[in-house]
């Protein structure tokens, strides 16, 4: 009987350790996130491990990108300083666990909004900050110019734990093409393996392809095929169960997009306080009580625009000027032929 006691004890101990991880933070009561954030003095934000244009750290450890700017906007709104953000780089696999376990308070990591993620796993998507779609990259020398030229036996490098894996299967299955999926845990290894010639094609979101192409040994040798095989609305995510925090993040993003619509920039925000347009005045905190419902002051949105800028400024700074995707495509305002359309702040 006692012969196996040792093994049994180690088994029980392991299970106990396992559950410790899930209990790190018990504070998930309503709107506690805001209180905790203000107490700590920084916003805890989960980002990618390095995707130029979206969330990428330079050599000095400064994070930039459109995903990063969402977290900075929230920090400007609730703490008054866009730099008071603690960034946690996460792999695709870790990201949701980090959020649901309370390690981070916002997940802004090029994450696709899908029904099952929104409904199943204790998450709430608050909006879309980039409309994307999955595509394929191939070597120019292969002569492939369209996905119609893919043949049986093609090998495709990608990341695990993303919608990419599922879309890829749907795509190849619907066309009856057999393929070899080579799925890595980290994006850097995917790029290295594809670059070395392990795979015939590299598939992920098109923005990701454009960004990763800049990391290749010779970016000009690769092209992104024109076809888009899926809808990938990317946006920030919060934990389910704190609706006030959810609203703060949602309206921080909305403020950036609406500010662009009304021509409010980081440079002219202060002077807009005296505008004749009440909608503009509401967006810079000069009219109405727009922060009270969140437990914030009235100038929370002004701080976002002044410190982070509007959506157009953020896009230009991070994605267009860096040469990743100069053309805004669907991520243009609805008034300019794109699909960015947010509810009004009033």
């Amino acid at each position, binding site marked *: 009987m006692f012969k196996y006691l040792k093994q049994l004890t180690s088994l029980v101990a392991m299970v106990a350790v*396992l*559950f410790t991880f899930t209990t790190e933070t018990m504070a998930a009561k309503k709107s506690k996130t805001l209180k905790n954030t203000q107490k700590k003095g920084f916003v805890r934000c989960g980002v990618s491990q390095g995707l130029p244009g979206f969330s990428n750290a330079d050599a000095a450890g400064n994070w930039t990108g459109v995903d990063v700017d969402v977290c900075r906007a929230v920090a400007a709104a609730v703490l008054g300083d866009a730099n008071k953000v603690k960034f946690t780089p996460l792999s*695709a696999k870790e990201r949701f666990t980090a959020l649901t376990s309370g390690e981070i308070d916002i997940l802004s990591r090029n994450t696709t909004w899908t029904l099952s993620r929104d409904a199943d*796993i204790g998450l709430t998507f608050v909006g879309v900050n980039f409309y994307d779609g999955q595509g394929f990259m191939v070597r120019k020398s*292969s002569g492939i110019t369209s996905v119609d030229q893919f043949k049986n036996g093609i090998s495709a490098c990608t990341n695990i*734990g993303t919608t990419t894996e*599922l879309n890829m299967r749907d795509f190849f299955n619907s066309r009856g093409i057999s393929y070899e999926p080579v799925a890595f845990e980290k994006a850097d290894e995917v790029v*290295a393996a594809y670059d070395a010639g392990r795979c015939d094609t590299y598939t992920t979101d098109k923005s990701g392809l454009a960004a990763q192409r800049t990391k290749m040994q010779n970016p000009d040798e690769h092209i992104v095929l024109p076809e888009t095989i899926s809808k990938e609305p990317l946006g920030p995510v919060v*934990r389910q*169960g704190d609706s006030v925090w959810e609203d703060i993040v949602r309206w921080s993003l909305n403020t950036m997009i609406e500010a662009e619509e009304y021509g409010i920039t980081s440079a002219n925000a202060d002077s807009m306080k005296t505008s004749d347009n009440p909608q503009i005045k509401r967006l810079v905190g000069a009219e109405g009580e727009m922060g009270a419902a969140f437990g914030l002051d009235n100038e929370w949105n002004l701080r976002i625009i002044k410190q982070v800028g509007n959506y157009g400024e953020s896009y230009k700074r991070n994605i267009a000027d860096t040469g990743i995707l100069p053309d805004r495509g669907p991520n243009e305002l609805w008034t300019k032929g794109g699909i960015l359309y947010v509810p009004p702040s009033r």
Partner: protein
Amino acid sequence: MNFKLKDIGPQLMTVIAVVLVFGFFTYNAQVNMENRGIDFGFGFLSQESSFDVQFSLIEYDGSHSYFRAYLVGLLNTILVSVIGIILATILGVIVGIARLSPNYLINKFAAFYVEFFRNIPLLLQIFFWYFAALRALPLPQDAEAMFGISYLTIKGLFVPAFIWQNSNIFFYSIVAAIIAIIVIRTRAKKKQETQGTQTPVLLISIGLILILPLLSFLIGGVRLSFEIPVLKQLATTSFIYEGGVSLPPELIALALSLSLYTATFIAECVRAGIQGVGKGQKEAAASIGLTPNQVLKLVVMPQALRIIIPPTTNQYLNLTKNSSLAAAIAYPDLVLVFAGTALMQTGKAIEIVSITMFTYLSLSISISLFMNWYNNKIAIQEK
């Protein structure tokens, strides 16, 4: 009665404490998950997985269940562990003996190998072998044929597939040969004990294991043919081999780095074991007229094995657990397929991580139970 309570008391208290801690954490997790709207349950295992896996020992695609995906990952983990253990043992024994060699060059080379490979973190070695292999290996269209039938390329090792006819008869012939060998061995042992004459068991065994399967070809109707990989063009500069069996470069790199790393530790176990047998044992054995081969086989090895087995068991366990680093280089093992993709698609973190932990625990316990059994078998039998 009192004596018994004193004996069991502390153990009982430990068990109660463990159960209480376990219960507290379970309750805590439950409350937290409920607050966040996360369901707990294993129902997802029967749902359609809807993702594909690169390399599988059993038939699998996205239309199978998550449980099937779990099996795929488990079998891939076992596959790379078994290959790794076999290679590491062979290499470890050779290097361990080489370190005791009086030949300066062999001795120093073995010592250099051990010190070099055991002092570099395994993950770095895995990356090195994988990306070094990817850089060094040719594209499929440039690959030189090995023996005219196999190709080692950046997309993997392509070897001919066996196509059997009446393969079951061939299989039975091997089983029959093994049974015959066991019978002959027991007979020979008995004969030696009663009459003192020795039978050339090894020669007879080799003969049996060769002749019986050969007979199955000649008169049993067994036929074997090969399907040789053929180059196929996918696009102007992209090619692949079709037909035959392909081993992904991820498997090769992982098995190679795991065995090169673990072999260094096994080599040290072997060296310690052989050095641990007293010099007097060898001299005594020689003095009663045993030949050097008999000294090694009957006196040194049985004693050395007792020292070698327990620490080597640890190395086997380490290798199996280290195989979980596969996720870094896209080898679809249990961690990548199940604790990776499946976890992401379902969001069932607690369920999947606990299943994965229990699986590794069971694998490790199985290995250690087997090795303990083997260790007991070769231990000194007290009479």
